[in-house]
């Protein structure tokens, strides 16, 4: 299986560039070749406070799973439009008890570079600390983390080679005259009803039909297959400093709205405590704008109770082009917010009961032992 994936990966990287029409394609190929010679020697020196091109992120994933084989596995999700492999990392503490799932994806919009940076940071934090940090250890007892560091791989690469401010995927439409679907308008929830465009030249183009894009299909099918076990769906974007809950397509509120606000607000407070950054919390249609076909709304409507969109730093000063100097602080504060949400999710699903069970079993055993000693 592995060698096949490796071949697919190479093909995926080279085929689009290999057609070699114009300067940007040639540049892309060169970029890929240059980047595969790692500027850093090992995971220990991987700079989490810098932005990384896709080639480096693929390599980082391999290094992570090689370093932490007891808890990390890498899984194939599907292929992008330009035939690149999409991988997610599963972080799971082996145990006998069944686990619930936390899903996090980053980079559904290509230009939001701080998002993939955060996904990598998150993975590093969990893996570096799960053994000696009781909070993280506790979470991993009953929860598995599934992290997709870059959802819109083709678009992300395009922002490195050609257009830093590109947002959509790179699918071809209208006989190659028009490119890209807004993947976050392509999910099957009130598709293209509001806040999205049917015009393929627009940035919010919803696609030719719901889930028309391979990237959307890959994520949807997977989440759908695991939906009974997914407690929390987090999708990371920038910018705006917001924690958004459903919905974008209607002013109606989800059934657990009060709880979502409470958990969201607590997360924003935890975030602010780190570096003073202000985040606003609310439903997408109220504090941002109307949208349809978003992954967050779709996740909520198939039954995943906690579904949030994070819009990270900043507030417009740099926007999408957030300076690398801010990566660390942004990731630290966002980590605090995400852990706060995970703690709440963990509490809600009654995992503190398992402690009670252990105590009563111990009691019975000690009683039995003491009876035995009487005879």
């Amino acid at each position, binding site marked *: 299986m592995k060698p096949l994936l490796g071949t697919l990966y190479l093909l995926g990287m080279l085929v689009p560039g290999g057609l070699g029409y114009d300067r940007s394609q040639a540049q892309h190929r060169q970029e890929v070749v240059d980047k595969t010679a790692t500027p850093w020697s090992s995971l220990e020196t991987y700079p989490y406070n810098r932005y990384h091109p896709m080639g480096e992120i693929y390599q980082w994933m391999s290094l992570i799973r090689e370093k932490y084989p007891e808890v990390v596995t890498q899984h194939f999700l599907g292929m992008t439009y330009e035939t690149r492999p999409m991988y997610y990392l599963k972080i799971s503490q082996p145990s006998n008890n069944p686990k619930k799932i936390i899903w996090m994806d980053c980079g559904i919009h290509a230009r939001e570079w701080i998002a993939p940076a955060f996904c990598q940071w998150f993975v590093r934090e969990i893996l570096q600390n799960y053994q000696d940090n009781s909070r993280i250890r506790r979470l991993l007892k009953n929860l598995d983390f599934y992290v997709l560091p870059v959802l819109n791989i083709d678009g992300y690469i395009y922002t490195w080679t050609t257009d830093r401010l590109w947002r959509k995927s790179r699918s071809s439409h209208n006989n190659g005259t028009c490119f890209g679907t807004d993947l976050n308008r392509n999910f099957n929830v009130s598709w293209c009803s509001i806040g999205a465009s049917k015009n393929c030249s*627009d940035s*919010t183009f919803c696609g030719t039909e719901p889930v028309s894009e391979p990237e959307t299909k890959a994520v949807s099918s997977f989440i759908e297959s695991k939906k009974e076990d997914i407690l929390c769906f987090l999708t990371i974007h920038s910018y705006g400093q917001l924690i958004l809950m459903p919905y974008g397509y209607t002013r109606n509120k989800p059934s657990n709205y009060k709880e979502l606000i409470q958990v969201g607000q607590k997360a924003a407070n935890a975030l602010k405590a780190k570096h003073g950054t202000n985040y606003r919390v609310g439903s997408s249609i109220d504090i941002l704008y109307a949208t349809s076909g978003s992954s967050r709304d779709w996740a909520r409507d198939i039954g995943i109770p906690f579904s949030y969109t994070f819009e990270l730093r900043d507030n417009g000063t740099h926007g999408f082009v957030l300076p690398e100097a801010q990566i660390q602080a942004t990731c630290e504060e966002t980590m605090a917010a995400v852990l706060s949400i995970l703690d709440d999710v963990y509490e809600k699903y009654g995992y503190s009961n398992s402690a009670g069970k252990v105590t009563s079993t111990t009691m019975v055993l000690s009683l039995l032992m003491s009876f035995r000693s009487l005879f």
Partner: protein
Amino acid sequence: INSKKECQVDLEFTTEHYNPEEGEERLGKCSAQVFFKNEKPRPTINVTCMRFMEKSKRQQEDYLLYKHMKQLKDPLDVISIPDSHGHIDPSLRPIWDLAFLGSSYVMWEKTTQFLHYYMAQLSSVKQWKTDEDAIDFDYTVLLHEFSTQEIIPCRIHLVWHPSKPLKVKYHCQGPQAPEEASGIEGSAAAPTMGLTNY
């Protein structure tokens, strides 16, 4: 106020030195009323501020900026400020500041209660000299409109001399009909402010 046709936003904010030094306290405390009418751009703005920098100090700072700009390599031909990774070379920072100021005028001209703009990136800058010794900038700014998520390139021509108001001429592209206009910063309802107090 008829909420469909008109919209008023009341703001309270403090200003600070554009390049603040460590521990420098915030400057003026301001309140503003922004009035949008009939979904049209160019909202009316009434601003009042207290406790600003002294006029003479403002002028001094403006003149320092002017001198710095004059000293820059001529002709200046730069691509992308900031670069893809968000870096702005400190020597080029005043260019970004000035471009930001010029762009703010363009953004004001386009802003409605439904359309909000941010300056995403400067994508090319050319500096020319004029006879009156003013700073003369020709640049392309990429504006990000929030509700449509579109990137709109605008060519802006900016002429500045510290003792006179900023002159801005621009031409924006985009899916909408390209617009072209010019104006003088400070001639609208907002009072003229020194560059450093922006």
